[in-house]
C-alpha cells in the first residue's frame, strides 16, 4: 500500500520567537475535532511559505527564472525579523551557498531537523488520538509527539523536537513547542537562521478545503 498524499490544503501557520514558554493554558471546550489524519504533502522549496504581509519568514535573495533559486540558498538577511547577529549568520551562509554550492544543514547532514525546520519536510502523516498526536515525517524517520490539553513541565529537558503540547481551537489544532536543543547544524530554516535555547514555536493547523 503506497501512501497517497492528500493535496496540500492543510494550512500550517507558525510563529517562532525567542520568548518565555507559554505554559498552563487551559483548553477551550471543543465540540468537533478536525480530521487531519493521513499523509500531507508539502512541495514547497525551500522551506517555509512567507506570509503576504507582516513579520514573516525569510525569502531567497538568489533568483532564477523569476523565482527563488533552489540551487543557491541566500536568505534575505535584511528581513527585519532578524537581530544583527542572526542576520550576519544568514548573510555568511548565503555567501557560502554562492561560493560552495550550499552549506550544511540538519537535513543534508542527516541530523534531526528540530522544530520548526522539520515543517519543511515534503511529507507528514498525522495520527490523532484523544490524548496525543503523533506526527511522522517522511524523511529519515523523524517523529514528534504532542500531548493534548496539557501544560509544559516546569523544567523541560532540551531535545531535538522539544516538548510539544496541543489543543483544538474550533477547527484549528494549536501546537506549542519549547525546549529545543541546538544540536549540530540546528537552524530555524533552510537559510541558516540560527536559534537559541529560548526558541518557542507555535503552530496552527487548519483545513482549507
Amino acid at each position, binding site marked *: 500500500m503506497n*501512501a497517497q498524499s492528500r493535496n496540500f490544503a492543510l494550512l500550517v501557520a507558525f510563529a517562532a520567537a525567542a520568548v518565555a514558554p507559554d505554559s498552563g493554558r487551559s483548553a477551550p471546550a471543543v465540540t468537533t475535532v478536525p480530521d487531519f489524519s*493521513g*499523509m500531507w504533502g508539502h512541495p514547497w522549496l525551500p522551506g517555509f511559505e512567507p506570509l503576504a504581509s507582516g513579520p514573516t519568514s525569510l525569502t531567497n535573495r538568489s533568483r532564477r527564472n523569476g523565482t527563488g533559486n533552489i540551487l543557491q540558498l541566500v536568505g534575505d538577511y535584511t528581513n527585519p525579523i532578524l537581530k544583527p547577529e542572526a542576520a550576519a549568520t544568514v548573510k555568511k551562509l548565503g555567501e557560502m551557498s554562492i561560493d560552495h554550492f550550499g552549506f550544511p544543514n540538519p537535513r543534508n547532514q542527516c541530523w534531526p531537523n528540530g522544530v520548526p525546520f522539520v515543517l519543511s519536510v515534503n511529507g507528514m502523516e498525522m495520527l490523532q488520538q484523544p490524548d496525543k498526536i503523533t506526527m*511522522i515525517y517522511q524523511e529519515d524517520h*523523524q*517523529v514528534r509527539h504532542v500531548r493534548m490539553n496539557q501544560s509544559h513541565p516546569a523544567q523541560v529537558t532540551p531535545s531535538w523536537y522539544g516538548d510539544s503540547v496541543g489543543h483544538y481551537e474550533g477547527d484549528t489544532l494549536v501546537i506549542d513547542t519549547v525546549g529545543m536543543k541546538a544540536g549540530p547544524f540546528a537552524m530555524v530554516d533552510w537559510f541558516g537562521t540560527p536559534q537559541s535555547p529560548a526558541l518557542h514555536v507555535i503552530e496552527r493547523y487548519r483545513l482549507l478545503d
Partner: protein
Amino acid sequence: MTKCGYALLLGGSLSLLLSASSAQVPAELPPKLDLNGWLNQGTFGGGGLLPVPGSPVEFLFHQDPAHPFVPNGTGRQPTYRVADLDANPNVKQWAKDIMKKDNDEVIAGKMAKTARQSCEPAGMPGYDMYGFQPIFFLQESKKVTMIFTGDQQVRHVYLDVPHSANVKPSWYGESIGHYEGDTLVIDTIGLNTKSFVDLYRTPHSEKLHVTERWRIIEADSILEVRFTVDDPDTYYKPWTAIQRFRRVPTAMDEQVCAEGNFLLFDYGIPVAYKPDF
C-alpha cells in the same frame, strides 16, 4: 491513505460486531496493543529467537559452541554471535558461505554488524528482535503504526487491503494486516536485501516473506509475536519463531541513534560537526 477514528480500538471492534450479521462472528475482540510500550523480554539476555512448540528447533540458528556468546552486562567480556552453521539444515549454501566468511572475520576480531550499532533499519523480522527500547503501537481503523523508540523506527501496516501489484523493495517492505479474533496478523513482502534475517546475520533475498501473529498472552502485560519466515532462495522450508514483550509504563521518548552511538562508541557512523567545504 488512512482516515483516523478517535475510538480506535472501539472503532475496529464495532466494525467487526456490526458486520457480524453477514460475516463470521469474531471469537475475541481485536487486541488492544496501544498500551504504553512493549519491551522485548530478551533484551537483557542478549536476545535470541524462541522456538515454536512442535516446530524444528534446528531451523533456528544457535551459537557455535566453539565460540560461546557472552551478552552485555554480565561482567565478562562480551562476544558476538557466531552461528553453528552445520547445525542448521534449512539454510541454503550461498547464505552459509556468506555467513562463514563473516564469522571467520568476526572471530579474527572484526566487529559483527547489527542494525542498531550501525544506525540502520533492522528490516524484517529484525524489527521484532529490537531490544532495550520499547515498541509502541498506534491502532487506527484502517492502519496500525508501529514505532520502535530506538531511533524512531516506524512501520506502517495497512489493514484489510491486498498487497500492491508491484512493490518497490524497502527496509520494512509493504505490510498489510487484519485481525483474526484476538490476533493481529501482518503480512510483509517487498523487503530489500540490506538487512539480516536474525541476530546471526543471516542474509536473505528479495523473496523474503514474513507473516506475524501478534497476540496478548497475559492481559495487559505480555505480548507475543509468532512469525513465519519464507524465502525460497535462502531456506529450503519456511520456519517459525517467537518473540515476547512485556508492557512497560513509559512514554515514547526521543532517541537519536547516530547521536548516542557517536558519544558512547565509535562505529564509524558518518558525522560532521563542521563543514568540510
